[in-house]
């Protein structure tokens, strides 16, 4: 019943109540009928017995069996009369009805006066008396109770017919009237379902009256109205947002397009520049070799003819051209770094640094520099290019500690902000932090060549390699306090 539709529930409740009332009423009706009928039957039998008793006084008083029999025989006109008997004063049977009544029909002796139902019979004993106080004997009378069962059956049939008709009427009424309650609820349910499945909040539930269901319908409709308003507002906001996003996207695309164009132009310009630098450097080497070679020939073959001043000048020419060759080599290296293809792999930086240190110490055994290489440093990158990086940084450290009585160069790593930062630190000449941004420029030097030899290309090369690896490089330092280079990969 819990999951029945409201219509059926209401009808069932109506029917249940009216059915209960009807059944109780019918039961009361039948009971009343039967009880009344039994009482009527008892009083009818009593009346009949009293008439018979009054008539049989003389027959009993004067022991006239024939008369007694005749009086009792009047009972034959009532088919419900089963038996009757007259007992005299001493309890002897004077006459019976029917005349040849079997013994089980007639009690052997009179029983106490009164009427009672015995099984399917109503039996009674009534005194026979003439006058007020003279008892002459007893009349016994027995009637069957078919009349009672007939009455019971009849009233039962009436009750069932009435019950059926009344239930039908109740059902019809319930079916007709339940709509007053169920229709608004069903309309509400339908509207709610439609609103939630179709998401159409412009729907309104129809109102049937001003009762509580009417109030509910109003509240529901108001709620739908508010939802609709809010939905429209939301949609407006969404539309505005979309517009703005579209505008921004377009703007960004424009900017991206411009950036792409700039980048392409820059790349082209860079490539051109590299190609130019490469070809110039390459092409410059041949004449430079000629200058150096012929200067050497002059010095060897015509030394005597040149004189001291001439030899000295030629010596200077040779030194300058050799420096220039180194410069050109460095420039070519730098250009190669830019053009070379990257092969990424796991690189053992500590091992690489140790190799470089061994190489440095072998070529310059006269200088004692302390190198501290942290073990187990590794990185992902191109090993050839990373060797160039480490070689440059360690040689720089070695170079700028040249005037230090206890030179020391350190290679280590620190973890900062979740990323690994490699550190190369020396206790050499250092630099002025004001010029820190010039450190990594091509041909930018903070010291003169006389003080520390160099071309000003090394750190520029290092920065290019680091940049190609997607990393960053920066430096800290102070004059005569050493320099520290940090880089990430």
């Amino acid at each position, binding site marked *: 019943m819990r999951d029945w539709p409201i219509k059926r529930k209401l009808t069932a409740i109506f029917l249940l109540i009216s059915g209960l009332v009807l059944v109780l009423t019918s039961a009361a009706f039948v009971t009343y009928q039967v009880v009344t009928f039994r009482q009527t039957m008892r009083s009818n039998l009593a009346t009949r017995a009293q008439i018979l008793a009054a*008539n049989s*006084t*003389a*027959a009993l*008083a*004067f*022991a*006239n069996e024939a*008369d007694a029999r005749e009086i009792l025989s009047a009972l034959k006109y009532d088919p419900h009369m089963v038996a009757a008997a007259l007992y005299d004063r001493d309890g002897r049977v004077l006459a019976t009805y029917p005349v040849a009544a079997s013994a089980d029909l007639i009690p052997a002796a009179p029983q106490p006066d009164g009427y009672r139902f015995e099984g399917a019979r109503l039996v009674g004993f009534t005194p026979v008396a*003439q*006058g*007020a*106080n*003279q008892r*002459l004997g007893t009349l016994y009378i027995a009637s069957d109770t078919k009349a009672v069962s007939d009455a019971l059956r009849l009233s039962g049939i009436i009750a069932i017919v009435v019950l059926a008709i009344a239930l039908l009427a109740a059902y019809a009424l319930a079916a007709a009237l339940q709509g007053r309650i169920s229709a608004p609820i069903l309309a509400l349910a339908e509207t709610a379902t439609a609103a939630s499945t179709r998401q159409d909040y412009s729907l309104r539930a129809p109102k049937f009256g001003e009762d509580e269901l009417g109030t509910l319908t109003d509240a529901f409709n108001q709620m739908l109205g508010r939802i609709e308003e809010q939905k429209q507002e939301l949609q407006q906001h969404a539309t505005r947002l979309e517009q703005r996003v579209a505008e921004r996207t377009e703007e960004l695309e424009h900017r991206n397009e411009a950036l792409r164009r700039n980048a392409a132009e820059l790349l082209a310009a860079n490539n051109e520049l590299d190609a130019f630098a490469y070809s110039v450097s390459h092409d410059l080497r041949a004449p430079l070799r000629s200058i150096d070679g012929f200067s050497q020939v002059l010095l060897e073959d015509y030394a005597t003819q040149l004189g001291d001043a001439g030899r000295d000048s030629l010596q200077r020419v040779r030194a300058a051209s050799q420096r220039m060759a180194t410069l050109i080599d460095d420039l070519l290296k730098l250009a190669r770094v830019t053009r070379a293809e990257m092969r990424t792999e796991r690189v053992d930086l500590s091992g690489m640094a140790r190799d470089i240190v061994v190489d440095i110490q072998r070529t310059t055994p006269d200088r004692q520099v302390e190198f501290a290489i942290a073990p187990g440093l590794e990185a992902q990158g191109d090993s050839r290019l990373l060797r160039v990086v480490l070689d440059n940084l360690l040689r720089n450290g070695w170079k700028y500690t040249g005037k230090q009585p206890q030179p020391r160069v350190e290679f280590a790593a620190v973890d900062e902000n979740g990323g690994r930062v490699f550190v190369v630190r020396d206790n050499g000449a250092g630099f002025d932090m004001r010029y820190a941004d010039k450190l990594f420029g091509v041909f930018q030097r903070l010291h003169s060549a006389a003080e520390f030899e160099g071309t000003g290309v090394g750190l520029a090369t290092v920065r290019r390699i680091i940049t190609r690896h997607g990393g960053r490089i920066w430096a800290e330092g102070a004059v005569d306090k050493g320099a520290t280079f940090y880089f990430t990969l």
Partner: protein
Amino acid sequence: MALLKAVTVLTSALLFVQSPRASEYQVKAVFLFNFAQFVEWPAVATPDPQMPVIIGILGEDPLGTFLDETVRGERLGLRPFEIRRYRELTDIKACNILFISRSENERVAEILAALGKRPILTVSDGDDFAKRGGMIEFVTDKNRIRLRINLEAAQAANVTISSKLLRVAEIVRTPRR
């Protein structure tokens, strides 16, 4: 032999008289008592509502104590019963029911004439009592006691007999002379 026969007859007669008679007169005593309930006397006969119902016996009393036993403690309305035994006709004063014994069989006409129209219910088991002008006669028929009633005689004496009583009785008339 003859003597023996006489003795036998006498004995059997005695026997016959003894037991059936006893029961017969017992019944008759009850009947006499019952008559009081089916008969009405004129109001003058009972000026006092508590006056006893008097049942008189004229002549030799065959009822013995039966009648006394029957009426003992009984009442008709407020009226108690009283039994009176008369020797002479002149003894009869106030009386409601008069049983005339067989012993007076010869004098019945004389007695009835003497009673005249006095409201006394006359009862007897004498032969043809009713036909001879008596009101109720006991007739023995197949060991049963039946009633014979002379309605005219009763009406003449202003004694009303209930129709119920008449139902169980045989109505006779006094033959016209």
